[in-house]
């Protein structure tokens, strides 16, 4: 069990974080640079003292402003892996790993180092120096070192972001395997949404020093609680609208010049809402098939720009008759993402006139 509720003011920045994580879970703290992720970790590790609040790991109170408890880092029993790793460059791999075990007899140290080296797949590298290892190997040493003193909580601060993509994928998988063995809460900090989604049992979205939402990654992706979360998780289409109709079957929302059908929800007629639609959930239809009754919220239009990173294509769709966007400076209404192979199969390079269907279950409303 891991519990944190702290406030910290530093200059014009205020950190206000509340989180709990059950044992044996990975909680991912996800947010943009400067959101307060690293400061949160620094507070948990004891490098900075919060102004007020409480930090509890297991049964141990690390910080409690009411009871004037503020344990030094030495007594917090926390393992940390940072992006820059902070391996001791003058010590070998084994000496790095046993660094925190100096109170134990030499044999016990060596045994533990051997066990951990096996666990992180570094057998045979005990006598190397950090500079003689690859980035991924250094990463594993840092992890083994953090685990050596048997911490009650493991903090991982963007540990994989300096690595190449294949190594990163592999280490993520290894971390999940490791997680099953060590059975302590892990707090993982990242600004990479894919990484957050992959690793998180619980996902906490942080921005400007505040936790905006905590939930399972799937739930956050489907139902972001607010605009900050929606933007952070890559909802490219956020359109302002107004609820104009409501009955058992659902609501009707006017967006620009269009009325959209949406699922029943909490909003009353007249409410201002933000209509969120993930770009990969916009369905392309051949223009002549748009009128079929099974299609929801269809719009005719054309693709006016596109971009691609080689795997995914982003299309900018402009509605022909009724515009969705009230923003006159924007020449498109919707961003659509699809894999490049589909882009090619549909011959999107030449075929520019399309209809789209905005399915009800793809539309999420946030109060405005």
């Amino acid at each position: 069990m891991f519990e944190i509720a702290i406030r910290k003011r530093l200059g014009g920045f205020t950190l206000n974080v509340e989180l709990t994580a059950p044992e044996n879970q990975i909680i991912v703290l996800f947010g943009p640079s400067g959101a307060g992720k690293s400061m949160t970790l620094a507070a948990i590790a004891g490098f900075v003292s919060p102004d007020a609040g409480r930090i509890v790991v297991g049964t141990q109170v690390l910080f409690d402003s009411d009871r004037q408890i503020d344990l030094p880092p030495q007594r917090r029993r926390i393992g940390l892996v940072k992006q820059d790793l902070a391996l001791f460059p003058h010590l070998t791999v084994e000496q790095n790993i046993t660094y925190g075990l100096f109170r134990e007899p030499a044999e016990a140290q060596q045994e533990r180092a051997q066990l951990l080296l096996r666990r992180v797949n570094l057998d045979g590298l005990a006598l190397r120096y950090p500079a003689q290892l690859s980035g991924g190997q250094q990463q594993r040493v840092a992890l083994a070192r953090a685990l050596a003193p048997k911490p009650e909580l493991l903090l991982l601060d963007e540990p994989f972001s300096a690595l190449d993509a294949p190594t990163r994928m592999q280490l993520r998988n290894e971390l999940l395997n490791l997680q099953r063995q060590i059975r302590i809460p892990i707090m993982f900090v990242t600004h990479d949404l894919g990484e957050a989604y992959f690793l998180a049992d619980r996902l906490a979205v942080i921005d400007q020093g505040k936790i905006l939402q905590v939930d399972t990654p799937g739930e956050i992706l489907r139902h972001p609680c607010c605009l900050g979360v929606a933007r952070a998780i890559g909802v490219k289409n956020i359109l302002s609208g107004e609820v104009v109709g409501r009955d058992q079957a659902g609501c009707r929302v006017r967006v620009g010049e269009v009325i959209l059908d949406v699922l029943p929800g909490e909003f009353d007629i007249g409410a201002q809402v933000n209509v969120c639609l993930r770009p990969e959930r916009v369905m392309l239809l051949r223009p002549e098939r748009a009128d079929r009754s099974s299609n929801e919220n269809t719009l005719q239009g054309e693709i006016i720009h596109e971009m691609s990173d080689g795997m995914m294509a982003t299309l900018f769709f402009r509605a022909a008759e009724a515009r969705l966007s009230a923003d006159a400076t924007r020449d498109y209404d919707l961003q659509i993402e699809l894999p490049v192979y589909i882009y090619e199969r549909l011959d999107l390079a030449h075929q520019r006139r399309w209809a789209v269907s905005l399915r009800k279950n793809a539309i999420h409303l946030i109060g405005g």
Partner: protein
Amino acid sequence: MFKRKPGARTWFHHLSVGRLVFLGAVSVLLFFLVLPLVAVVWRAFPFRSEGWLNASTFDALRLSLFTATISAGIAIVIGTPVAYFLAREKFGGKAIVDTLIDLPMVLPPAVAGLALLMAFGRRGLLGPTLSAIGIELPFTTAAVVMAQTFVAAPFYVRAAKAGFISVDLGLEQMSALLGVSNLRTFVRVTLPLAAPALFGGALMTWARALGEFGATIMFAGNSQGRTQTMPLAIYLGLESNLDSALALSVILVVVSFGILAAVRLVSPKGFTLG
């Protein structure tokens, strides 16, 4: 007639005006720096025993090695914690403390000597107090050490401070999180990583102390075997025993070279005052 392949360039094709200016300047400077050194070594040989083997030469050598080592030792013992503190802590008036510590490096040594005399001399600020408890500092070997330490210690503090700053704070934090006390962290992480800078600084301090002249002669005087260090003996020897002065000079030239070589060896980037 000579033929060359098209495109191949001979050495003078590389010469430009800028290069000529550069080469000229380097030549002048090297000539100016090297010629006196060559001259002093050339004049000291052939080996003349009355220069190398007389008592005053030996006394000066022994006294210099002794006092410079003590001075460097004092600089290390007191300077290391000061340097660490200055490297890690922020406090009001830090710039003033930094400047005060650096001051002796630019202060003329004669002024330093006079200042020491005014502070610790018989009629100095602390003179009567020291006399009362039976301590007479001026014109003793202790005074030599004080003069050398005053002038040379800042070299160590600056180098050590730069060395400590170069040790990532994140390493010390990591050590703390691994359960290791601050003192043990200092010994196991900070000190080993700063060691080349500390060693380089100590060598430079030792060399500076070895060459100290102005402050020593003002504060400690010039008595053979007690306060007459090598630079003082060289100065005196100019009138009485030129061979002895030359011999001591050659020793100091060799030692200086050795120190710079050693400093380069321990830190690839060489000595920095930063």
